[in-house]
């Protein structure tokens, strides 16, 4: 005798056999667990802080910091409040990350392309570089660069110099144009040049799409920008004063300067991340079908044109997402600057924790700064990715 056929449970059925009901229970259990853990941790923290006499809250941000910061883009001294110290740290982090991303992209792309060179020496050198630099922890690389900068470079009193550039344990000094209001005109000219170059590029691209006539997309716009800046400079009265660093008795004075900490962090980040970026670029180029490069050669394009006009634009679609990850990694890795004393946001936070004992608040601040930076980078690269993605119907 056969069993009576079992009816499948209805979707909304208050029974354990209903998937929807079970799902609801699972979610409630998870939420309860999360809430209980959160309450447990918060309760313990509050209790511990009360017993140990630790004050909570972010009010310490407005009190005097009481420590000096080695390098800062704007004025900071020990009488300034904590929030300003954190601001200095954030600016320092962003500065090293931005410069690092720019240099890494250039170096990584060059090395990635170098892996396809017809010259065996170039190929071998690029491969050795990649294997060597990506298999050693970045922290050790940073520490080594810092060691080299502080031990091998000459003392500041006999700084090595090539022309107006001075290199010593005190860092790198270089000439900068002396600021005057006339430079505003140069900047305005530069801005006008950028706009004109953008318009020219658009026009050339449109003409190419309509008539197929190729125009210069890089050198002509570049020339327009330079000419614009030069015209602005001429209109401003051609200020030529430069602030050139001079070797004083104890230090190199004047001009712009970069500290050895900044240089070491930058060097470590760029060389480490470039190894990864070059792998990203290489796999991107390899992902372009081989027929594309054969077709380019059949059309008589040179090796450089083939790379620039056929391979790279197609590879870009594959490259951008992992490249974003590398940018984020670089930004996050810049937090290791704390190990060599570059005053980035982690280093400032660490000092603040030691001075005020507000561990929870300071770590939360650090995390929020990195979260916002990461999010902003992702959004920006997402927008660029959308632009570079293949346009499908």
């Amino acid at each position, binding site marked *: 005798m056969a069993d009576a056929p079992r009816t499948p449970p209805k979707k909304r059925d208050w029974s354990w056999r209903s998937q929807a009901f079970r799902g609801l229970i699972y979610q409630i259990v998870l939420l309860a667990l999360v809430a209980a853990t959160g309450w447990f941790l918060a309760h313990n923290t509050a209790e511990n802080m009360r017993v140990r006499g630790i004050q909570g809250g972010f009010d310490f941000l407005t009190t005097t910091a009481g420590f000096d910061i080695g390098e800062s883009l704007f004025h900071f001294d020990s009488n300034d409040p904590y929030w300003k110290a954190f601001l200095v740290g954030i600016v320092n982090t962003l500065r090293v990350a931005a410069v690092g991303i720019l240099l890494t992209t250039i170096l990584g792309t060059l090395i990635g392309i170098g892996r396809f060179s*017809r*010259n*065996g020496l170039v190929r071998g050198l690029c491969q050795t570089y990649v294997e060597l630099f990506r298999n050693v*922890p970045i922290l*050790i690389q940073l520490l080594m660069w810092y060691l080299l900068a502080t031990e091998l470079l000459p003392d500041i009193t006999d700084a090595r110099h090539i022309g107006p550039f001075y290199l010593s344990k005190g860092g790198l000094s270089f000439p900068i144009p002396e600021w005057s209001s006339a430079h505003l005109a140069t900047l305005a000219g530069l801005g006008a040049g950028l706009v004109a170059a953008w318009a020219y590029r658009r026009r050339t691209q449109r003409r190419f799409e309509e008539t197929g006539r190729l125009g210069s997309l890089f050198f002509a716009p570049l020339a327009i920008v330079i000419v614009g800046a030069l015209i602005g400079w001429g209109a401003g009265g051609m200020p030529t004063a430069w602030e050139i660093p001079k070797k004083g008795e104890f230090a190199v004075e004047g001009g712009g300067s970069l500290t050895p900490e900044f240089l070491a962090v930058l060097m470590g980040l760029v060389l480490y991340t470039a190894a990864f970026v070059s792998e990203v670029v290489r796999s991107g180029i390899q992902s372009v079908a081989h027929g594309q490069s054969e077709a380019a050669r059949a059309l008589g394009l040179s090796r450089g044109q083939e790379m620039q006009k056929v391979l790279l634009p197609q590879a870009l679609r594959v490259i951008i997402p992992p490249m974003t990850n590398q940018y984020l990694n670089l930004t996050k890795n810049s937090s290791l600057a704390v190990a060599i004393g570059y005053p980035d946001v982690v280093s400032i*936070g660490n000092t603040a924790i030691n001075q005020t004992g507000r561990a*929870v608040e300071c770590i939360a601040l650090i*995390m929020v700064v990195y979260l916002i930076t990461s999010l902003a980078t992702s959004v920006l690269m997402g927008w660029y990715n959308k632009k570079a993605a293949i346009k499908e119907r």
Partner: protein
Amino acid sequence: MADTIIFQSLPPRPAPVRTEGLVPWIRSNLFGSVPSAIATLIIGGVLFYFLPKLLNWAVFTATVVPNVDACRADGAGACWGVIAEKYRLILFGRYPFEEQWRPLVATLLLIALIVASCTRAFWSKWLAVLWVIVLAVYFVVMAGGVLGLSAVTTDRWGGLPLTIMLTTLSMVLAFPLALLVALGRRSSLPAIRSFCTVYVELVRGVPLISVLFMASFMFPLFMPQGVSIDVLIRALAGITLFTAAYLAEVIRGGLQALPKGQSEAAASLGLSYWQTQRKIILPQALAMVVPGIMNSFISMFKDTSLVSIVSMYELTGALGLALNSDANWRPFKLEGYIFIVAIYFCFCFAMSRYSLWIEKQTNKSRLR
């Protein structure tokens, strides 16, 4: 009469240009075109200038004996004597000197287990049991206190054993967590999905060092009164939570790569959710992401160097411990760095080669 026809042999064709061997390789790879030849000359010139200097420093004028005066002599190159003098401290950190055979044995055991786990012949259920046994033995040998071994507190563990232990344990602990989070991110239940997403994105948005700061400054506050957790466990917990987020993304990549037909077929066979995952989805997805997991392992191995910032003495920290306080040997820190760089490089390079090999293995099934 007959004309005599004289056959004249054609001149022999020239032999084909050799394309194999050293000289043709040099001709096509180093002097194939004018720019290539220029590049060869420039790079070759730079190498010819620097390589002898480097070799001179590292080999010919180097000092191997652990003697400070010999290292400081004029014209002396690299001082490898610093390693001969300090290698025990660099490799084992503050572990008691007479007992250092214990971390050596325990670590060799752990490495042997890892190598076995990477070998196809050992892939069976017994491997999991073996892991439990070996980890238990590892902790007994390291911590001591039983079987006549003297007790060694965890704050004295250090050097390479600590690096390997942190990496291995954090991966082993993070893996099940990552599996759950990866499945959770693809769940149809909104609360579970958003919780997993927030966890992964939060952790991936912050640097490891901030997580380690949290482990060393905040975890003590999280615990109830009177409960204090060992610093090693705290750091391990931090690293595990961090790794799990990255690993979850790797696994999710594998889950997404599976065609939907697989889970639909499983559902039509009447398998439950967990049966589907365990028998159909995960075996295929995990096999696909083994190289990715291996990459996480390599980056974790490198990232453990960060625990030296929160004053634990793994390989990087142990080097500082060995040299920073010793005024005699401190000038030769560069040689010490080169030593640990070589160690890290050997491990990471071996692992990346293994990752390439396994990638080839998994792709084999797809080639026809």
